[in-house]
């Protein structure tokens, strides 16, 4: 895993990343299976979102505090705010046509 932009934050970053990766690798395959019905999907998503918060919430807070300070020190906070204003990207992009759709139509 790559370093943090601030060497001070690297230990926190590595701990957070490995917490997320462990959670994510357990999350992904069952999440695909749970997509079968909306009710299943919602129940699973809620349970796993809570679990993520419980497992990685604490280390996330320490890491976030460290990195947001580093972002400010590098003068990236204003650039980041401009980028967010210009392109919030808060919603997932519309699912584009999948390659299999392309095959079907041709």
């Amino acid at each position, binding site marked *: *895993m*790559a*370093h*943090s*932009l601030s060497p001070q*934050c690297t230990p926190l*970053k590595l701990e*957070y*990343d490995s917490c*997320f*990766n462990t959670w*994510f*690798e357990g*999350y*992904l*395959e069952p*999440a*695909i299976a*749970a*997509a079968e019905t909306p009710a299943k*999907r*919602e129940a*699973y*998503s*809620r349970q*796993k*979102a*809570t679990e*993520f918060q419980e497992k990685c919430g604490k280390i*996330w807070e320490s*890491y*976030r505090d460290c*990195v*947001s300070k*580093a*972002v400010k020190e*590098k003068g*990236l906070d204003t*650039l*980041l705010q*401009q*980028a967010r204003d210009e*392109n919030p*990207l*808060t919603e*997932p*992009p519309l*699912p*584009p046509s*999948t*390659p*299999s759709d392309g095959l079907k139509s041709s």
Partner: protein
Amino acid sequence: MHFFSQAFNYEHPWSHVVIGMWHKYPNSKCSHVISIDTIDRSVDPKTGIIRTERVLGCKQKTPTWIVKLFGGSEDAFVREISFIDPSTQNATITSVNLSLSQFATCFERIQYSPMSHSRTHFTQTAEIQARMTLWRTAADGLERWLVQRFEQNAHLGKLGFTDVLSTLWQERQLQQAQT
């Protein structure tokens, strides 16, 4: 504006590719990426979609004229937003440069979607665009400055030549009167 795009398949299932996304760096072939930080992440408790906002730090040899002209440095930072939707098996990653963003933007979009149970389709598109409005403002400013300087100089030229002429002919008149 310049466009770039490519597409191909990875011989791995979608879930393996998406898990691998978080292990992409460090990687000896992409040694220009030197830091990665997650600055925001959310797991939607309704849809299960994971949104991640990261800042990537890159070190790349920049031509010296670019550094001199735009005041950049070898360190460049990129903002990256990814959405992973397990229910539609779709992962999209959008990146835009933070460094030098007042002059030009490089907007990249990557998408991973399943091609079959053991193959993943990858598409990448990028739009590279100089901020023309800024160039225009700068060009207009330069033009205005040039016009002002020209008007000032033209005015001073007139005053100066008026002086030269009057001095010259006053002297000539004086000389004539003496002879």
